[in-house]
């Protein structure tokens, strides 16, 4: 994980706890299988990504797997910003 991805992941953890009020035990916790991310919270997450990270996700890029875990979302954001990768 790059430093940029690590930084995004830390900020994202705050979004989950403060804005979405979702407790995420670990970066690789499956948010979908555990029922932590439902439709309403998914909408709020996308709106927060736009607000906090200036990231508007086009509908064609909204693959559910990008949002499966905190680590996956952080990776997705970093890649979209052009500073992800190994």
């Amino acid at each position, binding site marked *: 994980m790059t430093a940029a991805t690590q930084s995004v992941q830390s900020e994202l953890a705050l979004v989950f706890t403060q804005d979405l009020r979702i407790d995420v035990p670990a970066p690789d916790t499956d948010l979908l299988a*555990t*029922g*932590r991310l*439902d439709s*309403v919270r998914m909408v709020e997450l996308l709106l927060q990504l736009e607000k906090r990270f200036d990231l508007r996700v086009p509908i064609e890029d909204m693959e559910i797997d990008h949002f499966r875990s905190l680590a996956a979302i952080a990776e997705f954001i970093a890649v979209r910003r052009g500073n992800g990768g190994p």
Partner: protein
Amino acid sequence: MTLTAGVVRAMGSIRPFAPDDIPAVVALRRKAFQHSAHPTAEALSDYLEEVFFRNPWRDAALGSLVYVDAQGRIVGFLGVVPRQATFQGQPIRVAVGTQLMVDRDARGLASFELMKAFLSGPQDLAFSDVANDLSRRMWEALGGGPSLLQSLHWTQPLRRGRFYTGLLAQRLRVRGLGWGLRPLSWAVDALAGGWASAHGLEEVPLTPTLMAAHLPELLGHVKLRPRYDEGSLRWLLDHLVTTGRRGELHRVAVRSADGALAGWYAYFDNADGVGQVVQVAARRDRSGDVLHCLFHHAWRQRLVALAGRVEPGLLSALGASGALLSRDGPWVLVQSRRPEVLAAVHRGDAFLSRLDGEWWMSF
């Protein structure tokens, strides 16, 4: 909403809504919504079949969707009705989204996935005109959003005494105040007189034939407008009055003395005193005349007021007549992958009336 951390949820899938799914969707709707315009499951079933499988604009690529869980049960539904329109004279496909519902025991990402599938469809414009705040946020997250101008609603008082005393009683929440002030409000309305008739204009019945033939010339200056044909309009107008829950539908065309069509209007004469306007179409320079005829007609029906959704072409005439504007009704939501289509909607260069969205449907 309670999170059930630790419970592993299997993902579902989305597929097109088929006639065999109707009983499951009827059951889902009766579980999701307390109220229905249809008294029995059979009546609702017939209505769903009529609206989604027998509408005159059926298009396999723009069909309704169901969400099926891992056990094969239908736990979500999003209705889609295709409509035809033109943009700068060229045909475009409009998809009207309606009745998004998900089983409360199986929510997960079903409603988000259904909406995403709908908004990813091949339509040129996705449209919804009876949307709540939650739907608005969902559309915004998925790249759509409200058309602010067309999300405004207008109310034209026709009997100001009764209208404002009714409004006062409603705001103050004082039971009996409206009745108590009734003699005064009636006296005020009697002194104020009626809504004068428009001189030199003739009113004739509005038929689907007339609407289909004349919409292009009436709205020739509007970039985005519906494309009507007689058969689909006949079906639409029949269904508009089927349930009869909104009162009697009045459909009137307005002509000049020389026979030239100035425009038309359609509205429900509602028993509670406030009529609901379905559509007003007028030549660019005649919108004031057509509105005047509408208000006079509704006044003669003894209505206290008329209400409708703002059509950009009517805005200045509504202002001149003293109509009240508000932003407290449902949202009009739009989404398109074509920026020029969206720009036309947001600029007010679009005609998308209650007849062209989901407002006319009665589930």
